Structure formats: C-alpha cells, structure tokens
C-alpha cells in the first residue's frame, strides 16, 4: 500500500479483536489477535501507545517532542509502520 494513502488527519486505532500486550517473558510489546502474535519493535510500540484517538499529524508531533527528534524523519517512520500494520489489518484508520 503506498504510504501516501495514509492521510494526515487519519486516526489510527487497533483493529477490532487486536490487543496491545506487554510480554512479561521478554519485556517486549506484542500484538495479540485471533490465532496470532506479532512482536513489536520499539518504534511500533511507541507509535501504538499514542494511537488513542490522535491523528497521524498529532502522533508525529508528540513523538518529535518526546524524543526531541526531526519531525520529517519521524513522519516517515510513522507512516511506514502504520502502513505495514494496516496492511495486516492490525490497525484501522478512521
């Protein structure tokens, strides 16, 4: 899916039936869904904990602020990660 399809104003949320979970055996973040488990990297984890109704623009802004990082670079990471998760139906964009 081309990254350009994710609108700035889109509000990403975990898809129905998907839960964000902290795996106590590894300390890592995982997504749980019917018959499946996906281990998240740190970037995906940081993005997903901010998917609470905020728009893509707001998530990028929040991450740039929290990590004192370059917004343009963060925006690329966020869009790439969200596109990957959306393709796997792990998040919904509303």
């Amino acid at each position: 899916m081309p990254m350009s399809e994710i609108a700035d104003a889109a509000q990403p949320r975990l898809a129905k039936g998907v839960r964000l979970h902290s795996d106590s055996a590894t300390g890592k973040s995982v997504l749980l869904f019917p018959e499946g488990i996906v281990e998240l990297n740190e970037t995906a984890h940081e993005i997903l904990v901010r998917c609470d109704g905020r728009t893509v623009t707001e998530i990028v802004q929040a991450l740039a602020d929290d990590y004192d990082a370059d917004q343009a670079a963060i925006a690329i990471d966020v869009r790439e990660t969200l596109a990957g998760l959306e393709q796997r139906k792990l998040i919904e964009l509303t």
Partner: protein
Amino acid sequence: MIAPRPYALLAEISYRCPLHCPYCSNPVGASLREAPRHPQVVGYSNGELTNDEWRRVIREAAALGVLQIGFSGGEPLVRPDLAELIGAARGANLYTNLITSGIGLDDERVHLLRDAGLDSVQLSFQSDESSLSDEIAGARAHQHKLDVAEKIRSAGIPLSLNFVIHRHNIDRLPQMIELTETLGAERVELANAQFYGWAFLNRAALLPTREQVTRAREIATAAKARLAGRIDIFYVLPDYYETRPKPCLNGWGQRYLTVNPMGDVLPCPTASSAIPDLRFENVRARALDWIWRESESFNRFRGTEWMPEPCRSCPQREIDFGGCRCQAALLTGNAATTDPVCEFSPDRAIVDAVLRDINSSSGHAREWTYRVNPRAAEPFG
C-alpha cells in the same frame, strides 16, 4: 535440552459435544472412565477437571509465558463455568479465543462471555446451507448457528468462521465464502480435514479427489485476492496431496500445549490417541512448568536429535521438523519416523496407495461413522 517458552494453550475443557461430525479430531472411543475421581468436588464427577483445577492450569500457563488460550473441546459451552474460566484467563492477561459449535449460545450467554472478557469467537460451520450441514453434523444445528453468528456480531465480538472441508462439501467453497461475507465475519478458515481421531477412521469417506482439491485451491486463491483487507482467508490443504509435510506445531514442544478434559498435558490434541506408547503427564499430579520442561513426553521429539534419516541430514529439518509425529504413528506405527507425506519418506507409498484408491473410478466408501460422546464414569452433575 533447554525448553523454549510456549505461546498458546489449547484448553479442551470437555469432550462432550451436541454435534457428531465424522471428522472430529477427538480420540475415537474416548473414555473418561480411567480419569482420577475427585468425589469431594461438587459438579464434575465425570472425570473432567474442576473449575479450581482449570484456574490453576491457567495461572501456571501464564507464568510459563503463554499469551493465548483457546477454549475448545468437544463443545466448551457444555461447561456452565465457561464464563468464569474466560474471566480467569483474562485476569491472567491471556488473549481468549472460544472455539465453538455455537450450540448453547443465546443472547444472555453471549453477553456473559463478552463481559467476562472474551476476545474472539471461532464459530464452526459444516457447510453453507441447512440440509448438507445438518447431515454432516448429525444434528439440526445450521439455522441456530446463523442466529448465533448474528448475536456474536451484535455483541461486538470479533468473529471467525471455521469450515472443515472434505469430499462432501469441498465443491461448495464459493458458497461458504459468500456466507462469510453475508455474516460479516472478519476471518474464515477453510481447512481440509486432517486425518486424526474420527477423521482417520472416516478417511475413505472424507478425503477429496485430486480434481476437487485443485479446483478448491484456485477458488480460495481468487477469493483471497478479492477480499484482501476485508476478510482474512486461511485455506488449509489436505496434506496427503502435498509433497512436503506440514511444519506440525512449529515443532514438538516448541510453542503449543494442550490440556485435555481429564488434565492430561499433550504437545498436540491428537497425541494421546495417535501415539499410545507415549506416557503423558497429568496436571493433577505435576506442575505444568515441570511437564513442559522436563517430561519425557514433551522432550521425546523436541529439536532434531530424535530424527532418523532422511530428516536428520535434510536441509528442511528446521523448517518442517519432519512433519507430524501423530501422522507418522498413525500411518506407520512408529512416531519417530519421517511423516509419510514427505516425498523423501521411505513410507510415502502408504499415502500414495490411499490417494490411488480415492482417485480411482471404482466405488469408494461413502458412509461415515458419526462421532459419539465419551462415556462418563457416572451421569454428569
């Protein structure tokens, strides 16, 4: 050997079931007679684990690293304490799946299960319409399942439909996919019967022809592309038609464990009936952690040490793990041999003979034996 950590527990909370599907993977002639009796416990005098025992199993599984639990059977809804067990699993932070025929679900129970924290339901269907479905199930169930699917949807619980595919329904794959769309499910499993338990007994009546399998694969592939992003379609081939074995369980004792109704802990649900010479441990006698790490049954086929040739020197040995131990045992009488589905297996001729028989023009068995319920030691309740 260092044991890996398990990810998923299949909790077969009862072998009792209102349906009689001839492809059931439960053991044929399962008996609850030998199970240890706990006369002091009220409610389950038929050998099944009690509510307290299941709660302990759930806690121990979570401590071992398990993240997902599937409540299955038999029919898990026959246990009146199902909602309580789901609540206990959610309390232990597990993702909870219910794998059910839907028989026994009404609005009230659906809400009870949802409020207990049920994450997802996999609802079985026998086909897309009543007459064939009810014939396969050996019970009038199809119409009720349609109603149940609607109730699950309106309660907001994610829904998968599970179709077991075989010679008598495989030609209706397009209609099954249509039903999945109509019912608004997010996910569908179109899984050809795998030949264990009752399905092994009824194999001659269930195995589809090569022509049917080829067509079904094309239909599933096309539907997958058409519905991408809307419905997840999982199509599972009948492995007899493959040339390489399935990576059964991702390896013995690697990611999954099953606890059966009487508390036996199994690397896979069919192991106890398919591999009679392996002694399985019971949660009434041992801690789950010890059984997973130390027991002979979990270590027997762990890793690659147990492998004979041609597996031992095969570059695929860490990809398919030599296939399925139960299938090796059922077809050759020896669980420690290459899955005969593999084209390199010295026993591949056994599978080929079965396929020749099914695909020959001469008449083959059409009748199946319906699954019957295990006999309890004494009447339930």
